[in-house]
């Protein structure tokens, strides 16, 4: 009679469970705990040091009448729309072109992916110089004889955010291209053959057959791009430090500046809570649609 009992499910895969404890703790304490702490203190008038002195929604009222915050939000929307659309489109186009069985594919792939190896700080500085009217592109073009040529996005309040987007696209599209290329390679050769037999033109095959089949890759890409958009900070700091004036400010920079430079933690926490809220508003319905309906 040596019948083994049914093992307690808690102890199944014990090794794996023990191994994941640090990550669970990190996620629980640092991420969730830190987030709750931040939200709680955003209702206080904490200055340099956190204090539990509640003032209701005062920090939020102040936030939403501050011109700098409103400009930050507007910039984030413009920057977000540009990076989302262009990095997807350019990334996919580059991948599709590389997928044409061209020669030296490895070389091209390396070249396109190289900018991604640079941090945003370096990218920002490189593009700060390139877009500087006295040293960069404008200077070179004028040197070629076109004297009236003017291209100085970083010194013009109304277009500075586009100058920043250019740098972000240069840095980021390589990665998107690689993800897309991996997705394209995952499509079965036979599908292409079948499409050719049916006489479907190549662009139609891409648009109506291949892209819908690449849905998981697109979703991954979308998440990567979107998280990059919300947290954009270092690029702006390196390229313009928010200038000219406050024309290229972004929310993450507002949070940092008010927490540390202005010694007003409450205001910084309120702003970061708003950032979290905006992410939640986007993520929750999407996650519900994506994961919820399968059950």
């Amino acid at each position, binding site marked *: 009679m040596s019948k083994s009992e049914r093992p307690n499910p808690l102890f199944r895969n014990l090794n794996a469970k023990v191994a994941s404890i640090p990550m669970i703790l990190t996620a629980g304490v*640092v*991420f969730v705990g*830190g*987030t709750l*702490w*931040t939200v709680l203190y955003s209702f206080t008038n904490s*200055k*340099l*040091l956190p204090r539990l002195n509640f003032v209701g929604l005062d920090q939020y009222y*102040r936030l939403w009448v*501050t*011109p*700098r915050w409103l400009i930050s939000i507007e910039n984030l929307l413009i920057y977000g729309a540009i990076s989302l659309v262009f990095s997807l489109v350019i990334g996919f186009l580059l991948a599709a072109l590389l997928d044409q069985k061209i020669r030296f594919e490895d070389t091209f792939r390396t070249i396109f992916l190289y900018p991604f190896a640079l941090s945003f700080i370096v990218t920002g500085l490189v593009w700060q110089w390139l877009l500087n*009217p*006295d040293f960069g592109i404008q200077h070179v073009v004028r040197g070629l004889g076109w004297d009236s040529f003017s291209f100085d996005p970083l*010194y013009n*309040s109304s277009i500075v955010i586009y100058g920043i987007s250019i740098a972000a696209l240069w840095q980021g599209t390589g990665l998107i291209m690689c993800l897309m290329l991996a997705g394209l390679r995952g499509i079965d050769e036979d599908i292409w053959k079948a499409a050719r037999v049916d006489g479907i033109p190549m662009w139609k095959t891409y648009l109506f057959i291949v892209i819908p089949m690449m849905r998981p890759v697109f979703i991954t890409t979308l998440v990567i791009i979107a998280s990059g958009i919300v947290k954009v900070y270092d690029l702006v700091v390196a390229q313009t*430090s*928010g*200038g*000219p*004036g*406050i*024309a290229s400010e972004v929310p993450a920079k507002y*949070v*940092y*500046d*008010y*927490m*540390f*430079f*202005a*010694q*007003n*933690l409450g*205001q*910084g*926490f309120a702003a*970061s809570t708003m950032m979290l809220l905006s992410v939640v508003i986007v993520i929750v319905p999407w996650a519900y649609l994506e994961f919820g309906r399968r059950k």
Partner: protein
Amino acid sequence: MRYKLLTAALAATAALQFAGPAAATDLEVTHWWTSGGEAAAVAELAKAFDATGNHWVDGAIAGSGGTARPIMISRITGGDPMGATQFNHGRQAEELVQAGLMRDLTDVATKGKWTEIVRPKSLLDSCTIDGKIYCVPVNIHSWQWLWLSNEAFEKAGVPVPKNWNEFVAAAPALEKVGIVPLAVGGQAWQSSGAFDVLLAAVGGSDAFLKVYKDKDAKFAAGPEVAKVFKAADDARKMAKNTNVQDWNQATNMVITGKAGGQIMGDWAQGEFQVAGKTAGKDYTCLPGLGLNEVIATGGDAFYFPLLKDADKAKAQEVLAETLLDPKTQVAFNLKKGSLPVRGDVDVNAANDCMKKGLAILAKGAVIPWTDQLLSQDTQKQKEDLFSEFFAKPELTVEDAQKRFADLIASAD
């Protein structure tokens, strides 16, 4: 969340730097003096401290006070305090003191009779919270200076102006020969400081105090301040082609004659000195923009975090005494371009501009500076407003003044 991670990260880097073998009398001193003139000045302090048998471990943090202060504060609140740290005296370290993180220096001060030697008295008042002294003022820095390049005006064929109004009138002549009339760097504190200087010069000391000390929002919206905004409007038009970020780059434009002038504190003088320029011959300085000769008693001070290590605490006392030593005061301030905090030292070696400053100080024409009057929060909002004002011509004078008045109404 972001805050916690960052603090942890900063504390970790700081801990790494600190992990080396430390003799008992090594004292790390953090500061943000990194430009040429400033580095030369801080070397004098280090020399004087090393001469006492202790060792000054230099903890310079590049990138101006705005960048350095958060790092310093994180280290102090994060439990990894340095031996001593620079702040602008006034309200920057107020909460750190209230939280009991800073060392009470009252004993050292009584022993050294600081109340008798430090002048003007308001300097020590800014270091005093609840009757206890928490910092050592080391210099007086005043913002109220207009630095003019004699070379630029010669090139434009107009005499060097004697006050702000003449300067504004001379601007078209400068522009004609391709010189930027006024250099204002892109960093936010520069445009905000320039406005404060205009407020004290064009509006007068009373207006300055009414706005920043009494926080009279109605006055800030009124006609007297409107005059100041008009002057600021002139300033932004004159500064529109500056295209540099850092203050010393802007000063360099004046040194090389690419710009006519700059409104900047007396720390700019250190840059002129490093470049080998002579006051009166190569450049001209106008305190109070030549309109209202006052000096604001802002400046730098050293604060000492509370340390457990008894040897280090002893070294802190030695450093505090060294900083106020007459010899150190002279050597440091001559290099820094600032005024010494004690009236009984010999400053014959001072140049023309410093002597002008000392004369004003002796007359007692002093006002407190915004660091002493306003919280960092209000200062930051002010910086946001004026950096936008200087960069965006579409923001009208009237709108800007209205926003300024709102800001003063909620200031603390």
